[in-house]
């Protein structure tokens, strides 16, 4: 398979500027769309491509866009396209790569996506710590305005679009799309109640689409080369390629663009080089910190949304975190729950109080003060705050995913902590 999203990316080398991007086929998708394709034509290609959101939820992109009121069905005023570049999921490190090394690919994807939904203003909402990406995106935006790819009358089509880079002031919850919209409006980033959905009433009460960086980076290629070509890239059920990552104590941690549906074993063994010497694989989170553990029994599964879903987890961001046999699973889950408790926006009680309670129970177990009943408390929390509908948003249910699966696969480890009155791993990383 030839590279698509990463064809211009070589970490350590210079980022791709306008000249290099265009020399390698860049802005062909934009030229094609602006010379004869209507927004509806473009939307149909994206829908037919079966592209699914790469931010974690895997929602079909074409369907997400279809809820935006178009033309005479929309009251007069602005419509917004927002790029979610707030990569803060623990263990996720793919969007950084796309933005630092090929900023024009994202911008072209955003211009085309904005055209599809009739947006006239677009924002790249990017985490403030991504200093290099912010700088490179701003420079790329300048190049685009100078070339007439942004602003009034883009490439003579009559279409007009403004684009801004908006560095965030922090907080994980900003990755939730309605929280992100509140942050863009200068407010506390508490998620909003849905409905209304942002597609109808989002930023400043206007129709708004929020898409992940990697999702948007696919759009120029889909418009340029068509839906059938895109579907042919996957080797399983899903279409396209995906940036898969591996972190943890493997020989060669990293991020690689591979066909959607690539088997987990291939990613872990061929690309990540397998476990470091002396370590065995104990389990892994397939798609970031809020996905359920899988184990070595699942290595032959394809990285497809539905396949990983049927195995009891989620593909999420596609960036795996590896648990080795000498790292304490209780300690790992405690680290994750600490993160989620800290990042709760505090709006709803089950999340604001339930996560610190869960953290406390896990701290007690990890530090040898756990009681057998504590496992019942953990089960209670999993059933209560893990259930969608009991909390205001998906943060707490997401936090329960690694915990519930750790109790399922590594229950013995929890029990050993309690019966032995200490962490059996003695790794020094537990407390």
């Amino acid at each position, binding site marked *: 398979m030839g590279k698509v999203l990463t064809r211009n990316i070589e970490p350590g080398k210079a980022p791709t500027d306008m000249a290099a991007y265009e020399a390698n086929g860049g802005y062909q998708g934009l030229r094609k769309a602006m010379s004869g394709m209507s927004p509806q034509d473009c939307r149909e290609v994206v829908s037919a491509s079966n592209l699914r959101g790469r931010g974690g939820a895997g929602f079909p992109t074409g369907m997400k866009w279809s809820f935006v009121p178009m033309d005479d069905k929309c009251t007069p005023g602005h419509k917004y396209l927002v790029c979610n570049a707030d*990569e803060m999921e623990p263990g996720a490190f793919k969007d950084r790569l796309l933005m630092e090394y090929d900023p024009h690919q994202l911008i072209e994807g955003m211009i085309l996506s904005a055209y599809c939904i009739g947006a006239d203003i677009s924002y790249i909402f990017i985490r403030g710590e991504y200093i290099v990406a912010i700088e490179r995106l701003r420079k790329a935006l300048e190049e685009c305005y100078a070339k007439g790819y942004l602003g009034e009358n883009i490439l003579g089509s009559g279409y007009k679009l403004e684009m801004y880079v908006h560095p965030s002031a922090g907080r994980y919850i900003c990755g939730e799309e309605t929280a992100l919209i509140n942050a863009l*409006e200068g407010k506390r980033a508490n998620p909003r109640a849905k409905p209304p959905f942002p597609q109808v009433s989002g930023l400043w009460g206007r129709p708004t689409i929020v898409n992940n960086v990697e999702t948007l980076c696919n759009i120029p290629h889909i418009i340029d080369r068509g839906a059938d070509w895109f579907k042919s890239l996957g080797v399983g059920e899903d279409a396209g390629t995906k940036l898969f990552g591996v972190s943890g104590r493997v020989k060669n941690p990293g991020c690689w663009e591979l066909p959607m549906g690539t088997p987990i074993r291939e990613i872990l063994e061929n690309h990540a080089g397998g476990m470091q010497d002396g370590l065995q694989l104990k389990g892994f989170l397939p798609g970031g910190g809020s996905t359920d553990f899988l184990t070595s029994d699942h290595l032959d599964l394809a990285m497809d949304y539905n396949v990983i879903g049927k195995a009891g987890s989620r593909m999420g961001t596609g960036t795996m975190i590896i648990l080795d046999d000498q790292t304490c699973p209780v300690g790992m889950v405690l680290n994750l729950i600490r993160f989620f408790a800290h990042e709760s926006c505090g709006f709803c009680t089950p999340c604001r109080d339930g996560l610190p309670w869960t953290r406390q129970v896990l701290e007690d177990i990890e530090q040898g003060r756990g009681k057998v009943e504590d496992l019942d408390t953990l089960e209670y929390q999993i059933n209560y705050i893990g259930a969608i509908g009991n909390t205001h948003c998906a943060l707490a249910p997401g936090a329960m995913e690694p915990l519930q699966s750790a109790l399922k696969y590594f229950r013995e480890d929890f029990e050993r902590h309690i019966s032995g009155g200490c962490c059996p791993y003695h790794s020094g990383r537990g407390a």
Partner: protein
Amino acid sequence: MSNAKMIQSDVSSVLTLQEMAEIDHELEHIPYKSGAAIDALKIIQAGRGWVSDECLQAIAKYLGMSSEELEGVATFYNLIYRRPVGEKVILFCDSVSCWISGCDSVKQTLSDTLGVDYGETTKDNRYTLLPVPCLGACDRAPVMMVGDDLVTHLDDNKINELFSAGKTGDQS
């Protein structure tokens, strides 16, 4: 003096013309003044390092918000500092991939070397140490940011190299 003028003169005794111009620039594409709240906090912080009570009240007045409402915004975000910080802020990643890669012991070395824990500033006012959610560089864990620079593959040696006595603290 009219109320509006009094507010304006209060504000301009705290905020500089440059700061107000930068906030006005943001307001050009924001339909409501309060919509620039976070931008304004960041503009003030960029020049002054942090947001004092006096600045917070001046921004609130400038944007027609109550200072309580703006305080609610300011304290929500971890990259807005409501207390003075050192010349550089160290954002130390303690999320899961860095934890698996041994960041706890690196953090201990860092704390011992600088003589500060999370939330504290070194005596020479050079560094403030803060934890940060996953920095998105998990393939190079453990990692941290020192000012604007990402520092990867952390271990005790690297900490010593960066911060031992006599070093300027500039990283490459």
